[in-house]
């Protein structure tokens, strides 16, 4: 035990902490500037100097640990004088432009000067001059205000791992500058803005538009971008969000945000938002009233249901909608329309992967808290770059790497190049061979635990793949793969992070089995990357063709019966169609009506041309959305709904954490838009099924009754803090169900393209997310245009320079994009994102559905590249 006395207060401590922390525990405030709780100590501002008995010099309380018997004084004359002196020094070169500075009102230096500082400075000479920099679209730099606390630099380097900025120069000429000089060209996480104590680095988005004391309310909610679900606070004035800031102490993100979460919220105020219902009349979508639209929809659905049966109707739910929306939607399909044809894009990869692993390891196997990643003793990642798909999860990986936790990546991950202990970048379509070789090697090195004999039997049947064969296929030296196996075999409880590309593959089944084997052999914890905020919610709410709310299989009669009794109806027993099957069904005339809630299928599903054609052959399409997107333009009725910031509800993140989404503004509500669930409830009522919900809370209460997994949950539970799996509910306990697992043949593991070809894959840019982000002017200003990422070597061979126009052609089509050269890319791949109108990768991907996973098969799309010569283009144009 350590006894320390601060200002006469005795404190008993178990572990040595800094004097600053000890004082905080004793309720004694010591002013600081360069100190920040999420950054490592710096000791530069000297504001936290304190007096320690028997120590001649004043000491910085942020850097010095308490020792037993230490007596500290924080408010002696000597300390107070020093503090005043530091503030006087700081103001020498700090522009005193508070009346004009956006930071005024929430500026640490201003507050401290008011509280402790001398009333007048004695510095008579001129201050340093440094013009404000507007080189960047998002971040304004005013280095006349910088106090060299280096919080931003430490944040950027040590936490974000981007190392985009540095202190430049010495003495009072020190300032912060991006390495690029002008624009930041960084990850734009904006975490530097969070930690800047003064107005030196500020967001340009709201510059001079409001003062901190104008904020009328602050709403704690959850980000609407990805499956991590960061906590954030929306600051509101005059019914509009003026700024989004992270919540320092709360949430899984602990004060960190990514660019999308911090800057991308402005899509909700886009002028492109839908304002009124639209009904197609004489081939054109025309404005209509709500009652007209409701009546039309009810009548058409009734007709089709009576004529063709419920199974001729399909619904597509949304991973951007809340649990409440999605729950009501699946109920509408199953109970009101009598159809199990309900699915979403979560069915492409997230849901099948989760189901595969749950069948082996039990329900909840992927429900692992995020912070476990940085606390693990090893990390294996494949299938996507977590730093772009789920940036805050990516930071966990970077943090672990900084602590020298071994990180092995399989596949090219630009955001982890500097952080991976070992990178395995195989030739296209050969990641399965590498995975199989790793499993083969690990079986040799790690004894089987005997915990799951049935699965062990399956592992034993996986055909072994030698390092040499893996090398021959993947082009990665056998020694490197073996080295990775060696690294992996030293891990005792690693994190296995799995992205969509492993599943959306012609070898999706094989990959899942190999990853399950790896998980079992390493005693790993699985993290499924999730691009959208509520993929897990879709699964848990039963928005799957064969799953009822709470993850209860439709196939089990007792479950079906239970739900049927609850809703006083019979739930159809036959499993419904998946999203891709529904589209095929539309093309084949089997599906007559498609009800789409918040999903842009005409854009977000491969082979856009095919999907559009299929949708066009439907008798009736209803689209609920906030934008008139590619899908809505094909609809017969379009209904404007509320955006994330305008409604109450909940999301379930990729850890399966339930989080409360709160209404921050009225927004489109004032022009008549409604929650998705409210629209559905209204149509249900007109179809004869009453859904008595007055608010989202009523729906949650019903979910809490219907779904055994969500038994008894309330928003209060979510608000109270970490509300993690299995909540208060009953997870599905079952034995390993390995009946459906097919043992792959050696040939399928070792498959390799017959001829050398160039393949096109999906790029997932950090700055965009599906099609929502393209309505954010902030994110568009960071990345206004799509690009094609290709290896520098390939580009050099084709004389393509950064920014040159390149045509990417496949059998499905052609897109023209500027080139982005990547020195670390494998040569046989080019990557194109799917975020920008008319130039998404799905235009050039063909329609291929995996028979078993029902996922789109997105690998193996052969492509050709052609450099577009501007001169020729001009002549021909």
């Amino acid at each position, binding site marked *: 035990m350590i006894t320390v006395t601060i200002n006469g207060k005795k404190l008993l401590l178990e572990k040595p902490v800094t004097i600053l922390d000890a004082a905080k525990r004793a309720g004694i405030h010591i002013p600081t500037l360069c100190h920040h709780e999420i950054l490592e100590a710096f000791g530069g501002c000297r504001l936290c100097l304190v007096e320690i008995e028997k120590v001649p010099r*004043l000491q910085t309380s942020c850097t010095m640990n308490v020792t037993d018997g230490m007596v500290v004084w924080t408010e002696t004359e000597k300390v107070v004088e*020093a503090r005043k002196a530091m503030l006087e020094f700081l103001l020498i070169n700090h522009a005193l432009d508070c009346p004009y500075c956006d930071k005024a009102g929430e500026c640490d230096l201003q507050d401290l000067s008011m509280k402790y500082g001398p009333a007048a400075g004695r*510095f008579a000479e001129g201050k340093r001059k440094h013009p404000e920099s507007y080189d960047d679209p998002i971040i304004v730099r005013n280095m006349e205000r910088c*106090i060299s606390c280096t919080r931003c630099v430490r944040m950027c380097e040590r936490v974000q791992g981007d190392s985009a900025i540095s202190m430049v120069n*010495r*003495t*009072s000429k020190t300032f912060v500058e991006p390495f690029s000089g002008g624009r930041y060209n960084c990850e734009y996480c904006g975490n530097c803005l969070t930690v800047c104590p003064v107005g030196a680095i500020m967001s340009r988005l709201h510059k001079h538009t409001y003062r901190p004391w104008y904020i009328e309310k602050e709403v704690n909610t959850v980000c609407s971008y990805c499956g991590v679900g960061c906590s954030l606070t929306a600051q509101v004035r005059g019914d509009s969000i003026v700024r989004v800031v992270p919540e320092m102490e709360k949430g899984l993100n602990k004060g960190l945000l990514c660019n999308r979460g911090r800057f991308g919220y402005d899509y909700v105020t886009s002028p492109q938002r839908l304002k009124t219902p639209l009904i197609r009349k004489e081939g054109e979508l025309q404005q209509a009233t709500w009652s007209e639209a409701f009546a039309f929809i009810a009548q058409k659905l009734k007709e089709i249901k009576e004529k063709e049966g419920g199974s001729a109707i399909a619904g597509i739910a949304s991973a951007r909608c809340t649990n409440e929306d999605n729950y009501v939607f699946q109920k509408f399909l199953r109970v009101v329309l009598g159809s199990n044809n309900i699915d979403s894009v979560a069915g492409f990869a997230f849901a099948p992967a989760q189901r595969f692993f749950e069948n082996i390891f039990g329900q909840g196997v992927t429900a692992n808290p995020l912070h476990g990643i940085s606390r693990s003793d090893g990390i294996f990642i494949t299938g996507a770059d977590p730093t772009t798909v789920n940036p805050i999860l990516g930071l966990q990986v970077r943090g672990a790497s900084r602590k020298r936790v071994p990180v092995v990546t399989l596949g090219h991950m630009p955001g982890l190049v500097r952080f991976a202990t070992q990178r395995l970048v195989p030739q296209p379509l050969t990641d399965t061979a590498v995975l199989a070789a790793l499993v083969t090697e690990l079986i040799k090195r790690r004894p089987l635990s005997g915990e799951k004999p049935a699965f062990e039997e399956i592992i034993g049947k996986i055909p072994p793949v030698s390092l040499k064969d893996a090398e021959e296929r993947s082009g990665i030296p056998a020694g490197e793969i073996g080295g990775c196996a060696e690294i992996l075999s030293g891990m005792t409880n690693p994190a296995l992070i799995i992205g969509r590309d492993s599943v959306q593959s012609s070898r999706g089944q094989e990959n899942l089995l190999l990853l399950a084997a790896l998980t079992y052999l390493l005693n790993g914890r699985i993290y499924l990357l999730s691009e959208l905020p509520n993929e897990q919610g879709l699964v848990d709410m039963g928005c799957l063709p064969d799953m009822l709310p709470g993850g209860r299989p439709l196939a089990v009669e007792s479950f079906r019966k239970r739900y049927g009794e609850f809703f006083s109806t019979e739930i159809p027993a036959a499993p419904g169609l998946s999203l891709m099957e529904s589209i095929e069904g539309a093309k084949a005339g089997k599906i007559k009506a498609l009800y789409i809630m918040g999903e842009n299928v005409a854009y977000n599903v491969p082979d856009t041309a095919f999907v559009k054609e299929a949708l066009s052959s439907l008798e009736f399409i209803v689209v609920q959305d906030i934008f008139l997107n590619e899908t809505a333009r094909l609809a017969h009725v379009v209904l404007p709904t509320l955006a994330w910031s305008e409604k109450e509800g909940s999301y379930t993140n990729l850890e399966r954490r339930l989080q409360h989404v709160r209404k921050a503004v009225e927004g489109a509500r004032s022009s008549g838009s409604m929650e998705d669930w409210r629209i559905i409830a209204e149509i249900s009522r007109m179809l004869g099924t009453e859904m008595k919900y007055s608010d989202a809370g009523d729906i949650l209460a019903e979910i809490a009754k219907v779904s055994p997994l969500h038994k008894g949950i309330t928003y209060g539970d979510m608000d109270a803090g970490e509300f993690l799996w299995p909540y208060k509910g009953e997870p599905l306990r079952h034995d390993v169900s390995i009946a459906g697992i097919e043992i792959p043949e050696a040939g399928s593991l070792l498959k390799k393209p017959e001829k050398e070809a160039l393949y096109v894959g999906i790029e997932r840019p950090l700055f965009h997310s599906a099609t929502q982000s393209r309505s954010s002017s902030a994110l568009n200003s960071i990345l206004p245009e799509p690009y094609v990422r290709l290896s520098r070597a390939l580009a050099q061979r084709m004389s393509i320079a950064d920014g040159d126009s390149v045509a990417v052609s496949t059998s499905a089509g052609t897109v023209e994009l500027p080139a982005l050269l990547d020195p670390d890319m494998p040569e046989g791949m080019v990557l194109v994102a799917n975020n920008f109108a008319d130039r998404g990768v799905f235009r050039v991907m063909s329609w291929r559905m995996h028979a078993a996973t029902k996922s789109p098969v997105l690998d193996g799309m052969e492509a050709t590249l052609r450099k577009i010569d501007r001169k020729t283009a001009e002549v021909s144009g």
Partner: protein
Amino acid sequence: MEKYLLRNIDNPDSAHLVEYVKAGGYKALAKALEMKPADIIGEVKNSGLRGRGGAGFPTGMKWSFAAADPKRPKYLLCNADEGEPGTFKDRPLLEKNPHLLIEGMVISGYALGAEYGYIYLRGEYPAAKDILEGALRQAHEKGYLGDNVLGKGVAFHLSVHQGAGAYICGEETALIDSLEGKRGQPRIKPPFPVNEGYLSKPTVVNNVETFANIPYIIEIGADAYSKIGSAECPGPKLYSVSGHVKKPGVYELPMGVTLREIIYVHCGGIAGDRKLKAVIPGGISTPVLPADKIDCPMDFASMPKHGSMLGSGAVMVFDETVDLVKVCLRATKFFEHESCGKCTPCREGVGWMRSILERIVKGAGTGGDIELLLEVAKNIAGKTFCPLGDGAASVVQHFIKHFRNEFEEHIEKSKVGASA
């Protein structure tokens, strides 16, 4: 006194291995490799050797901390970033006697179990770089360096890293950051470099002259060594004397020789036989002494009792013709220019002192300026991250303490000028 550190200095080829060996070089290394590492550390401890960089920390103690740390590998760094105005004592060692440094470092590396060493060389010593690299090549060829030093199965690799001209990189933790490729700024201590230094491994950083003493200690033994010079901090010492003396230069004298003896006996007195006004005894950051305070023994223990510090032993002599306010301004400009920018008082305060001094020198000083200067210096002193800021404050404080009248004269003149 018999010279040791500079004993071969008059030989024009003294930097060459052949000449060094001819004069008895590398014998101490052979002797040391027959000893147990712990015994070498014991010998250095018993010798009473104190670090020659300026702080005078007992070398043997520093070594035993690093030796006790089980982390591997260990690193040995030589601080050759000799950048303080007035200090040029390491330069003759680097340029004229590089093998003495190398021999000292190999012995030290063996004693500490360090297999890798770096010489962090002042960027403005390009000649020393070439000479050192030549010497390293020779030493490598002859087996004094490499995987198997003198066939004894001991490995030691040594290379030169050139600094980029920042004074702060002479501070050992800033030196380590700079060597790691980072911006050179001092680190928070603890952890100390002996436990977490270069690449977070146990690291000993010693000055050039400190290493140069090691072979001598091995050669003559701790007992004999500890009888040289002052009892409290023994050994030979290099004094670099500059300014208004008849014979400026680097002198090897026993520790504890008086300042008066250095100036009047060894350096031949004041140039032009003018009157002495002031002396900075140990490099620009040590307190200035007036002419009547020079009967002080020049060693680490005695100088504080006489109102100054030994520092690097760089004696700067000012005669009666010198305007000490201008000297004070020049010194302060140096400290401002070299302030790394990490901590508030040094970054902002030193520049403020410079601007006040500048206006005094320019004839624009006002009545309160001396008090303001002292106030600013007081607010810097004892509150900075590293000793650089303390040094800057101390310079101003001591110039005013001993020569306040000169500051007052300047201000008085400005008043006359202003009223005329």
